[in-house]
């Protein structure tokens, strides 16, 4: 039976409590309590995810067969195109080698692979911690995932997270003992220094609320082409250079604006993220300026 509709202070008290919770959380006072509660919640989440995955697999097989068939056809077409390009590149390679020889150029060859090019093979998981996605963000306006590796596996806040093919997923935002929350590239608070592979033009890739990416602060005089590959530039020292962010799908240019921008399709399908790799071996360069040095005393 419902309680009699007698006015009480409880709703007001609880709403004030909720506001205080928010304020103290933003001020950082609740971090120890949060960490303690994570010790209880994280194992439950991992177990729940494992159970759900078993049932999910059963239902997913039929749908996957159909999707896989389509995907195989697409990949076959890509392979054919890449084979042709490969032949052409080998021709260029041979020409370059010849020209270097003619110039007596003593540099080393072949080209080194970008950091993370071999990631998320099972062998790579022996080097860096691989995490399975065990939870998706519950807030409809944020873009985070929870992975099942945490501080015990050497994960720290700020570490880059990638998926197959050195495609960037995001960075570690919060760390628990055995889980971590990853802020995805498409989160509105995410901002990554980037560059275009062909023209080497730099900009900033930010997440949009609709789940797309936008590369901004591109100088007006630079030429951007649809199809350009966007990579991390490494500027600022927060991310390794050369991780794949996505591909330009649209250029937005207005004559009166200081900068132009581009819509970027992410390289990662964030709705189907299952396995990621945390790059624990990348050392971030601190960007805070050192405190002012003591003035050198001049000798009289």
């Amino acid at each position, binding site marked *: *039976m*419902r*309680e009699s*509709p007698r006015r*009480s202070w*409880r*709703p007001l008290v*609880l*709403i004030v*409590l*909720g*506001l205080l*919770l*928010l*304020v103290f*959380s*933003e001020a950082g006072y*609740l971090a120890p309590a*949060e960490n303690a*509660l*994570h010790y209880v*919640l994280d194992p*439950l*989440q991992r177990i*729940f*995810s494992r159970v*759900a995955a078993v049932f*999910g697999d059963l239902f997913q097989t039929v749908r996957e067969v159909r999707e896989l068939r389509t995907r195989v056809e697409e990949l076959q077409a890509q392979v054919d195109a890449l084979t042709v390009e490969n032949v052409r590149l080998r021709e260029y390679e041979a020409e370059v080698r010849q020209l270097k020889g003619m110039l007596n150029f003593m540099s080393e060859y072949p080209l080194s692979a970008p950091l993370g090019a071999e990631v998320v093979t099972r062998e790579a998981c022996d080097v860096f911690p691989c995490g399975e996605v*065990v*939870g*998706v*963000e*519950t*807030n*409809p*306006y*944020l873009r*985070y995932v*929870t992975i099942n590796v945490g501080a015990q596996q050497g994960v720290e806040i700020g570490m880059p997270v990638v998926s197959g093919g050195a495609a960037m997923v995001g960075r570690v*935002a*919060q760390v628990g003992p055995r889980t971590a*929350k990853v*802020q995805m590239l498409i989160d*509105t*608070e995410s901002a990554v220094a980037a560059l275009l592979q062909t023209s080497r033009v730099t900009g900033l890739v930010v997440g949009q*609320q*609709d789940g797309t990416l936008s590369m901004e602060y591109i100088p007006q005089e630079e030429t951007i082409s649809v199809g350009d590959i966007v990579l991390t530039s490494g500027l600022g020292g927060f991310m390794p250079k050369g991780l794949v962010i996505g591909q330009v799908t649209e250029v937005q240019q207005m004559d009166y604006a200081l900068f132009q921008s581009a819509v970027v399709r992410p390289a990662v399908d964030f*709705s189907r993220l299952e396995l990621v790799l945390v790059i624990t071996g990348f050392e971030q360069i601190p960007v805070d300026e050192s405190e002012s040095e003591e003035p050198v005393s001049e000798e009289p």
Partner: protein
Amino acid sequence: MTIPLLVTVALSQTVLVSRIDLWGGRPDVMLLVVLVWSMVRGMNEGLVWGLIGGLIMDLISGGPLGATTLALLVVAFMAGEPWGLGVGAPVIRLLILTFICVITYHLVLLAVLGWTGYAVDWGWALLRVAAPSALLNAVLAPFVQRPLDWLERRTRQERFVL
């Protein structure tokens, strides 16, 4: 009983339900549970469920701690009030109240995110996320009400009349 139930609901939300996206709308099981419980059991209990459920959701979420808690408290308060009682069929009241509460929930979430420094596109959020979510959750509300009605009857304190 309350805490294990709400933990299960929260984990279901993050592991399973949050992956569902229908034209931008997502089912929000925790919101529905708090809303319906507040309707069937009263505002006071609804507020307690909102507080506990919101805290659990905030711990799981990557957003500010207290955002979901505050939003669920407001929902529990609204659902616990006897607006529109006796006007039309109960299921109609449930659908309308759910729609309004979901919109309010999203407004509170957006306000908190904006206040804590997140970039918020109000127009896009309300049209492309809040409105579809409100419709979707309104449709789902009767399905959540049935088991919670049963739970309410099972856990109601017996009155002995001599």
